[in-house]
């Protein structure tokens, strides 16, 4: 039996209450902190979208050099070769490692680019009344929030290769500056996704819900 589905839906906002986003406790509107978990209570974060856009822009700015500069510096017998994110994927494909190449391509190209598009689209959509299906918007948001952290794979790959391949002149691998930029870009977009207030999705779909 599903108790929640049989009840008429009212929002905490309409009841003059606020839901704690950390633990789900319901408190009166105007209360500063949750009684149960002491998290800060915010009924609707008016600056949510501003924060989203700020982190989003920071993420884009970091993402550009992350793709232009080398991720890995491989030195063999005094000759240094550089490889970028996309270069690393191409190398994997050349070696016939199609599966792993696909994973890296997905984690470091598809996910970050997709994330930028989806977050911008969501932030734009919920900033004004819209007719989109809220469930679809939420699905996009949840996918972005869930999958975003997996972009870090490439940064960890660089860390492990650097730690393992240190054979002086014969072969040495060092991290390139793109590793820092890429890590920053992932962190910024994770913060952008976390700043997004999912309750805004429903507010704009049902403008009369407060009655």
């Amino acid at each position: 039996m599903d108790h929640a589905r049989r009840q008429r839906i009212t929002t905490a906002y309409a009841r003059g209450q606020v839901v704690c986003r950390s633990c789900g406790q319901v408190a009166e509107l105007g209360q500063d902190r949750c009684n149960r978990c002491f998290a800060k209570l915010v009924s609707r974060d008016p600056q949510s979208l501003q924060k989203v856009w700020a982190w989003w822009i920071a993420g884009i700015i970091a993402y550009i050099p992350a793709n232009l500069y080398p991720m890995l510096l491989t030195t063999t017998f005094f000759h240094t070769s550089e490889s970028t994110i996309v270069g690393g994927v191409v190398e994997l494909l050349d070696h016939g490692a199609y599966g792993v190449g696909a994973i890296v391509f997905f984690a470091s190209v598809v996910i970050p680019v997709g994330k930028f598009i989806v977050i911008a689209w969501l932030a734009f959509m919920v900033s004004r009344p819209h007719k989109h299906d809220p469930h679809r918007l939420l699905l996009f948001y949840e996918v972005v929030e869930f999958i975003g952290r997996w972009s870090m794979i490439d940064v960890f790959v660089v860390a492990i290769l650097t730690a393992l391949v240190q054979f002086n002149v014969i072969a040495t691998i060092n991290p390139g500056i793109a590793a820092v930029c890429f890590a920053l870009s992932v962190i910024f977009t994770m913060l952008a996704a976390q700043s997004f207030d999912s309750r805004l999705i429903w507010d704009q779909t049902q403008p009369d819900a407060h009655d």
Partner: protein
Amino acid sequence: MTQTSTTVGCPVCDAVYALPLDMEGQSAQCGRCGFQLTARRPAAIGQVVGLSITMAALMVIVIFTPFLTLRSGQFEAKASVYDTILGFSTGIMVPLAVAVFLFILVLPIMRMVLLVYALTPMLIGRRNFPQAARALRYAFTMRPWAMAEIFMVGVAVALVKLAGLATISMGMAFWAFGAVVLISAYQDTFMCRNTLWTMLDANG
């Protein structure tokens, strides 16, 4: 007067529900957005604490044993988990070394410690330790930033990249870390926030 229902809010879409208290083992989804409001699994607390202690013990192995060894001809290189962090320890990349240190060791371990600290008193029939609610909240907040499982996928990719060039052998730390990742994924399947919060609150 005894309460027969409890008010639960949906943190995703702001809907409010009155859920009956006697619904042990029944889950409830938000009628609007589908968020799982509660799974009502009080028995799971023992499992959460037990698995957290197990993972903390495994993390000790991760810290103190060799992770990977690379052999090529007469050359041999050993790397511990620390070495992977120290790879970024030069010049402008120092902050990245700190971040990687946090993501793969500090935050996963802190999460285990906080969960044990917040939930153990309930199992042994004591009142909550001071700041237990804060500890539990931080444990949940840290979840997206604890990236042990992502690190292990990174290790797998790195191993494929090196496969043709050298022989690689895995040390104790590798298997211990792999076990932590699997246990943590298993733990996530029955961590019900609402149950944990309700019980923590009742244990006051």
